[in-house]
């Protein structure tokens, strides 16, 4: 098992030029600090910022594209069995696609994954088709026994994600960190350059 290596932004060496919102840096830095070097994902719009930061700043993180969220959790489970500490990035709408993997593989086998969930159907939503699942996400996670936390700000995201990941891998329980739409939409309008003070 790879030991999680504590890291800060400064340890990453010379910063490459990458434009991304602060919460997106927080997701990457927090997941990395929790030991994640493998990230399985089904993309959505906000998560594109996270993927860009991983690609440009974390050359030792492997990004694995899945065709469906359930498949992503299957791959992540295999990565864990092989000694890695996987993260899965998904939009909340994909939680519905994931339930059988979560309830009949990750939970009963005690296979931990750090879930990072880009929320739809919460405050700021405009699409009625996103509302029912968005409103149900926390109740579903509660009912299937997956602890979850919510990042309330760009500043808090690093620590929130890192703690969720650290707790997941030490307790062998998959944990979710939810990114509200207001966080990802608001920060996305105020892109900052990585080499500028936040």
């Amino acid at each position, binding site marked *: 098992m790879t030991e999680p290596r504590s890291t800060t932004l400064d340890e990453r060496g010379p910063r490459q030029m990458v434009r991304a919102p602060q919460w997106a840096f927080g997701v990457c830095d927090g997941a990395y600090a929790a030991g994640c070097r493998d990230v*399985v994902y089904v993309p959505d719009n906000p998560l594109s910022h996270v993927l860009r930061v991983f690609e440009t700043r974390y050359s030792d993180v492997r990004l694995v594209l899945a065709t469906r969220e*359930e498949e992503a959790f299957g791959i992540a489970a*295999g990565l864990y069995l092989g000694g890695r500490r996987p993260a899965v990035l998904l939009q909340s709408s994909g939680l519905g696609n994931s339930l059988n993997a979560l309830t009949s593989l990750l939970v009963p086998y005690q296979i931990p994954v750090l879930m990072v969930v880009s929320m739809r159907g919460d405050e700021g939503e405009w699409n009625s088709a996103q509302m029912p699942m968005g409103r149900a996400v926390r109740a579903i996670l509660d009912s299937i026994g997956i602890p979850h936390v919510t990042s309330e700000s760009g500043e808090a995201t690093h620590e929130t994600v890192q703690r969720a990941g650290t707790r997941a891998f030490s307790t062998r329980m998959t944990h979710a960190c939810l990114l509200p739409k207001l966080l990802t939409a608001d920060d996305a309008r105020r892109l900052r350059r990585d080499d500028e003070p936040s």
Partner: protein
Amino acid sequence: MNRLDATRIVVTQAGDAAIIASLGHPAYDLFAAGDRPRNFYTWGSMGLASSIGLGVALARPDVRVFVLDGDGSLLMNLGSLATIGLLQPGNFVLVVMDNEQYATTGGQATPTSHGADLEAAARAMRIPSTATVRTAEDLVAALGGPSQRGPLVIVAKVDESATDARPPLDCVALKRRFMSAIGEDES
């Protein structure tokens, strides 16, 4: 060739490879054919055996990984073939035990009984080495030796062979045994 015969051949050819088995009959047959610490049995998550195997193969390029799937299970997660075709893991072998039915649930026919071709699906997803086999000799030949490069997808047309053998139900113990066997102690 029935599925238990085919499973015995895979276990023999696998050597010290990891073997991941889909729930139900593929897992029961693997347990009957040769229980070993490097077997990982799923008790749920239908469709995900190939995805779990892919994850192990990515995590551990030094370990060959065999997956025992069913036709009905693979049809539930066909996107997995696209991901395998994208990543091209050299240490990955998927054997689909195609009995053209959902045998674990009572023998309902699957689309492969009407000509749906899982080998063609694998080729269409850019998996370079594929085969459809109906005999033990052809299965042995398709598996190749330990130096056979993957990804390899073999569709084994098999007869049903229900066994009464069952792997243990303790999921956590199954996980720990598998991880320890490939040198990944959790503690």
